């Protein structure tokens, strides 16, 4: 059969084709990174506003009154506006940061290079994925500026609050519909991206790059895209039905006889539990969509800095596959107290606890490999250690929450908030920081400042623990989440803890200014990066220049001769052997 032999070898010259509607996976990766960057700092500012409101509920926040006259009259946040800030914080962080940064941004940039491809399998799809994501972002943010403001039902958009379109109160009108639309569009973008990642990984590996020779982070992106392909396919119709409930008068998610604001709702015959089933069937795999790429990035960087392979990195890959598989069987553990049959709580509890087995194996591999290794201490490897620390600290509280009997007490308290912020939020962000410090020389041709990087790490590490560890204490003390203020009830004694957390949050957020400064300063004034500054073996360090040329390898197809992690060997390059080096490794020196 005839196949056209046309390549995308010609680099575009115009600014628009080169930097805006680019087909180049590297530019698209940077675009995803930039979008996540904007989203993460927006989300962080929102969390500041929430923290400030929690401890000084009556203090006016300068300028906020301009953003929302009804939500924050005179800058004083109303209880509804608090929930609206929380919803936008969660949605931005989970979808536009934790899904985009470790997976779409770094994956787009480095997956094709690591497997020796010139680009993704479908560059146009790739461009469409990014711009569709961008539209989803704009639709979401526009909710800030519509009447009644953004939604207040949380990033989980629990029905019936999210599904009742008839009686708009603050945050229940157009804003919630925009939320549904935004996530619907986001699903389409993520599905397009996943298709592309899978096709690229399977079909565009260069000669010698067998599946078993792929670096662990490429495996992580591949497994993540398989998870995303199935998970977003379920959220897509869920959002569709949610939008129908809101605009077409259906009631998939609204029960009969619901009375809101002394007004009987016209909806009949639906079930709020149905939304929870559909949402969490997506939502739990989504947690792994956020964390698996970080696991891959961290393992990849640690192996390079330990100068030896993990014991064995292949077991890590099998563990990631097991986690991906199990992630589809545990969604009900978010619903122990939602009115499901109590027996089904036990059914969901069991596989949840089984997930801790591959997670524990991974942790033991990291710790066992680190033990006695000569770890090179740099910003990237420090953030890797931070990741492991957060992964363990946040993961251990998962044991508690996975037991239905203990969850009765802990459900919807700050314990849960602490748990998922540590294991999903901060851990994945640590992975993104590690990846940024590690790959910055390749992406820009300049080194990041190590001193600033280390300051950034220690302040962030201490700061995030100072924020999120007390959350567990608050939860055990019975502090319910989503309360906008603690005025005159049993929670008043906990307000000093909240004050501490607020100070820690402001401090940790301010510490990120170091990162921003370092990022921009190093981009323009950083020391020029050598071709392979970390002496790493994988293919992204074999490109002829930094950043790599348009077709990544300068018109050549690299050939791969080795497993990804040939460290601690004797070779002409020193103690490592590039995957592209035809040389055979000597004995360990």
């Amino acid at each position, binding site marked *: 059969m005839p196949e056209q032999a046309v390549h995308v070898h010609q680099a575009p010259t115009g600014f628009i084709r080169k930097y805006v509607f680019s087909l180049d996976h590297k530019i698209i990766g940077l675009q995803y990174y930039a979008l996540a960057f904007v989203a993460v700092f927006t989300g962080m500012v929102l969390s500041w506003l929430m923290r400030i409101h929690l401890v000084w509920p009556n203090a006016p926040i300068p300028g906020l009154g301009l953003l929302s006259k009804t939500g924050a009259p005179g800058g004083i946040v109303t209880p509804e506006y608090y929930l609206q800030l929380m919803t936008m914080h969660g949605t931005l962080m989970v979808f536009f940061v934790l899904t985009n940064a470790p997976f779409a941004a770094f994956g787009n940039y480095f997956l094709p290079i690591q497997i020796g491809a010139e680009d993704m399998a479908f560059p146009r799809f790739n461009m469409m994925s990014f711009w569709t994501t961008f539209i989803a972002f704009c639709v979401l943010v526009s909710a800030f500026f519509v009447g009644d403001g953004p939604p207040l039902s949380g990033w989980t958009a629990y029905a019936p609050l999210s599904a009742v379109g008839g009686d708009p109160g603050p945050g229940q009108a157009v804003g919630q519909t925009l939320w549904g639309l935004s996530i619907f569009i986001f699903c389409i973008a993520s599905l397009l991206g996943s298709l592309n990642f899978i096709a690229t990984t399977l079909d565009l590996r260069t000669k010698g790059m067998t599946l078993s020779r792929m670096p662990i982070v490429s495996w992580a992106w591949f497994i993540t895209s398989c998870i995303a392909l199935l998970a977003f*396919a379920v959220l897509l119709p869920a959002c569709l039905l949610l939008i129908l409930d809101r605009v077409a*008068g259906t009631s998939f998610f609204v029960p009969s006889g619901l009375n809101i604001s002394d007004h009987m709702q016209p909806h009949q015959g639906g*079930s709020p539990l149905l939304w929870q*089933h559909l949402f969490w069937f997506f939502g739990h795999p989504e947690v792994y969509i956020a964390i698996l790429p970080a696991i891959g990035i961290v393992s990849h960087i640690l192996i390079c800095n330990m100068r030896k392979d993990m014991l064995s990195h292949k077991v890590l890959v099998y563990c990631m596959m097991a986690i991906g598989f199990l992630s589809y069987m545990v969604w009900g553990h978010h619903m122990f107290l939602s009115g499901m049959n109590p027996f089904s709580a036990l059914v969901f509890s069991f596989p949840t606890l089984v997930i801790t087995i591959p997670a524990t194996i991974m942790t033991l591999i990291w710790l066992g490999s680190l033990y006695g290794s000569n770890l090179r201490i740099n910003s990237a490897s420090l953030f890797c250690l931070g990741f492991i620390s957060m992964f363990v600290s946040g993961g251990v509280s998962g044991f508690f929450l996975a037991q239905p009997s203990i969850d009765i007490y802990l459900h919807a308290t700050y314990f849960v908030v602490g748990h998922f912020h540590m294991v999903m939020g901060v851990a994945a962000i640590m992975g993104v920081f590690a990846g940024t410090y590690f790959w910055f020389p390749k992406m820009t041709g300049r080194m990041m400042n190590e001193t600033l990087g280390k300051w950034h790490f220690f302040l962030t590490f201490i700061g995030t623990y100072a924020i999120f560890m007390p959350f567990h204490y608050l939860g055990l003390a019975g502090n319910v989440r989503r309360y906008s203020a603690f005025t005159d009830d049993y929670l008043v004694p906990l307000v000093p803890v909240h004050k501490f957390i607020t100070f820690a949050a402001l401090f940790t957020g301010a510490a990120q200014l170091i990162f921003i400064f370092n990022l921009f300063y190093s981009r323009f004034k950083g020391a020029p990066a050598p071709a392979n500054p970390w002496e790493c073996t994988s293919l992204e360090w074999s490109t002829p220049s930094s950043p790599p040329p348009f077709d990544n390898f300068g018109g050549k197809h690299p050939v791969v001769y080795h497993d990804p992690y040939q460290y601690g060997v004797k070779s002409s390059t020193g103690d490592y052997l590039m995957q592209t080096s035809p040389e055979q490794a000597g004995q360990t020196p």
Partner: protein
Amino acid sequence: MSEATLDRASHGAEVMEASPFAIPSSKLVMWLFIISDACTFGAMLFAYGYIRNSAADWPLVFESASIWNALLMTFILVTSSLTVLLAVRDAANENRAGAFKWAMITAGLGVVFTILHLREWMSLIGEGVRPFQNPWGAPMFGASFFAVTGLHMAHVAGGVVALVVVGLGFKAGRYAFRHIEIWALYWHFVDLVWMFVVPLIYLLNMKR
């Protein structure tokens, strides 16, 4: 297909590792899309089953005329799966006129299917079925029916457009065999989904 497509086949086996499935990337992507879309339909049918099981007075509305209509639609869709196979066979033999003819016949059958379906929608709407109420019982009957069959109908309509585009393109020499084959795959999938819709939506809701 887009000139920017970097197909494995266009790179040649001497510089690339073999794909584990030995099929063009675009065909692989269609298979992946089908897996993903199956999850989408699965979620829709799950939602329908959930709503149906939790309703006390789910109406059983389809009379034998509706069932016969559904069976006729099924017959048409299954037949179109056969005609699209003939298009693939002709395309594989580089018989461009034949492949075009069979692709158009398939698209035509898809149009007939959609017309029959829309006629049925109109008759249900005429009887008073709305997304939020109907004359017989559980108000969510209409919403579930329209959502599931509407999603399927949208897939059929999309398939018709795709078949016309690749049929014309293949005849003109712009498209290769694999494009016909990929959309034939899609068409079979849409057909297969209907095999779930008929028993779950029609036969289960037959008047008895």
